[in-house]
């Protein structure tokens, strides 16, 4: 089928997502919960785009293309909502994300600086009992990329989303750390994490 992205027409396969169409024409929208190695999840709402005729912005990663769709990656409402979401996400973190993280890059691309809202931030909660993997729970934004990496890429099923609202976070096993879980130390979670909530011990000091 054919769709148009920012005025450029492109042929996509049946079942292709808006994000695939966007990337097929060489355009880009920022993503945060998306990882090409995993099934689209649609949790973060950063990849919103405008679609002609749609009542509001649509998430590009989970919305399938339809014949003749007209997609606008510069849609003002979509960018405004995405920017506000990133600002809210940042406002919960006790420190700004490190420059190399995906969250920092997304914030930079949306020109989000210091969040305007200063409320409660997540308390520091570090787990460095594993020889390689460190979990800094206060940096978790509940995008569930680690959970999906563990389930869909490795198949170790060691990670689980826990809590609700402000206390939402990720638990390893029965919340007793990597070593006491079904973790096989493959590191797929750390590789996917966009904030360094899960990272390598050796990288903490760099």
């Amino acid at each position, binding site marked *: 089928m054919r769709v148009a992205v920012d005025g450029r027409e492109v042929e996509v396969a049946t079942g292709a997502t808006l994000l695939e169409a966007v990337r097929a024409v060489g355009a880009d929208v920022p993503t945060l919960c998306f990882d*090409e190695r995993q099934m689209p999840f649609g949790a973060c709402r950063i990849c919103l785009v405008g679609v002609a005729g749609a009542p509001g912005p649509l998430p590009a990663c989970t919305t399938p293309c339809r014949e003749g769709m007209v997609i606008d990656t510069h849609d003002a409402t979509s960018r405004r909502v995405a920017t506000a979401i990133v600002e809210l996400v940042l406002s919960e973190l006790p420190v700004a994300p490190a420059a190399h993280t995906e969250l920092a890059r997304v914030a930079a691309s949306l020109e989000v600086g210091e969040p305007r809202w200063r409320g409660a931030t997540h308390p520091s909660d570090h787990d460095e009992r594993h*020889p390689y993997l460190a979990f800094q729970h206060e940096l978790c934004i509940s995008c569930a990329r680690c959970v999906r990496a563990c389930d869909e*890429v490795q198949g170790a099923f060691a990670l689980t989303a826990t809590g609700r609202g402000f206390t939402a976070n990720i638990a390893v096993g029965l919340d007793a750390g990597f070593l006491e879980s079904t973790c096989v130390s*493959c590191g797929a979670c750390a590789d996917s994490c966009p904030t360094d909530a899960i990272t*390598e011990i050796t990288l903490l000091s760099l």
Partner: protein
Amino acid sequence: MSEDERFDSTVSTTCGYCGVGCRLEAHTRDGRVVSISPAHDGPANEGHTCLKGRFAHQFTRSRERLTTPLIRDGEGFRRASWDEAVALIVSELTRIKTTHGPDAIAGLASSRATNEDCYAMQRLIRAAIGTNNIDNCSRVCHSPTSFAMRRSFGLSGATGSFSDIDHADAAIIIGANPTEAHPVVGARIKQATLRGMRLVTIDPRQTELADYSVLHLAPRPGTNAAVVLGLAHVLVRDDLIDTNFIDQRTEGYDTLIELLHAYEPDAVESITGVAAERIEAAAHVYGEAEDACLLWGLGVTEHKYGSEVVQLICNLALLTGKVGRTGSALLPLRGQNNVQGSSDMGALPDTYTSYRSVEDDEVAASFEAAWGVPLSRRKGLKINEMFDAAVAGELKAMWIFGEDVAQTDPNVAHVTHALESLEFLVCQEIFENATSAFADVILPASAFLEKAGTFTNAERRFQLVAPAIDPPGEAKTDFEIITTISRALGHEMGWSTSAEVMNEIAALTPQYAGVSHERIGRKGLQWPVAADGTDSPMLYEHEFTLPGGRARLAALPYKPPGDAADDEFPLILITGRRLQHYNAGTMTRRTLNLELQDSDWLEIHPADAARLWIKTGDHVSIRSRVGRIETVARVTERIEPGHVFTAFHFPEIRTNLLVGSSVDVNTGCPEYKVVAVDVRPVSEEAARTPALAGI
């Protein structure tokens, strides 16, 4: 340069652990590898890797690394300059060659090293020394696979790619534990089962993948042939075969049918211990699938008739026409990073590159023309024959590169005797090990993160290896060591980079005609590679690489293994890998993987444990016909009664002291997987001092 502010550089390379061939990004800071992440465009790993590839790089900066050449000095070693070490090697090899002839010298290339290193090593042994006494450690793992696939199909390699697993409706895995030994492929198989692929596991152990299978068959060790013949019997009996495919593309069907009559499920049950109805059900899972893959590991090959069982596995695909198309592939799980390549490169006593016989005058003449020296037409010695010849006093010198034969080869007492019998032994290593203790010269070499070249993974894919860091101290790359010594021996190889070696390989090998480092790029090339660079992700779509284009169905009966349980040795020991460690443990035991697993154990079934008054944590003695070791027991129902299992990663346990001299009838691959043992509790702390039988 690196895009990430934490790193000085990021280098794309290929993992040096198992044969999966994960593409990695190695990140460095201040001349050290500080992190490794998976390359998202890696064709075999697709953005994933395991705890070995990702984390176990700390060994590269171990203080125990060899940093200067060492020369024997009485009972120990002294540091020496490269000039002195090279001069000694040249004078000793020259003396032995003059006195005893070139066949008194042998070399071992390494399946851990690059294609270019292995090619250089076989050229040195053939051209600079003048003998075909060159072999590599694939001898002790997948040489039966290589032999059998050449017999059945024509080429020595997987028929497809790991991506075929994603397209298969069913799969049979025999004698392999990929979630531990090949974790990235293991994860891929597991995901496929979660999506509905019907998996059959055949293994004496209840492996992790057995939990995800629709059917798990646990045959007695050494009876794989009967199981596979039973599957073939049911495929034929229940008309699950593809008669068109058999008629048009195979030969030997009538002979096979006669043989298969005897392998009724009931008969197979009495040989293997696998219930007849489970044999029937497994055959139906495979036969009824539209597309299905066959995978196997060392549980198939490391047997007296391993090379025959691989041919019988090939039969299953031929009978059902499940080969040469997407989703229907035969995928041997190669053990080491370059097990495929080291043999492809001709580091074998009977073949040049791409398995062309040293007895073939035309082939030998092409190498003579390229190298400018006359070459021997006589086959050389296999690894096990080298040790026999050393003990017999016929082999005087060995050059062993990247293999700890005194820990990993079977019948360690015999290997040790052989090493002691040599007049001159050169070891080229990154660490001192059990083998280098017998060396006259130890050369400090480089790890995979320190060198350039290519590895060929289990999918026949050439992939680039690039140095992320420098070798420590005065250590050199294997390429530099081999070419330097060859030059000193009077044979100038004429290369300055590994890319030039590959150009020579391509020029002399029609199957790799289009291979170059530039063409390999980030995506690799799967051989055969035509001169225009077209590669071959899938083999045998239209014809097999055998005379007439037809595959050969093998009519080979079941024969009992080389060892059997008896009154004195009532249990059968199987050995294998654990997730956290890799082979001799040389690398992984020098990383924090040791924190994840710091010792080994013997797995034993509760029924056997109760009879022997053994419980988890007890120290036990394991005695075979040739040796005795001690370790700690772990009682588990994941192994069948009558069988015990342990790994071989820990030198203080030295599992291979127990393994005897039984080898595969065609290839000399040792029978690691069937060792009759006697297990009993020992009251005190394990001695950790291995003892030999009769001592």
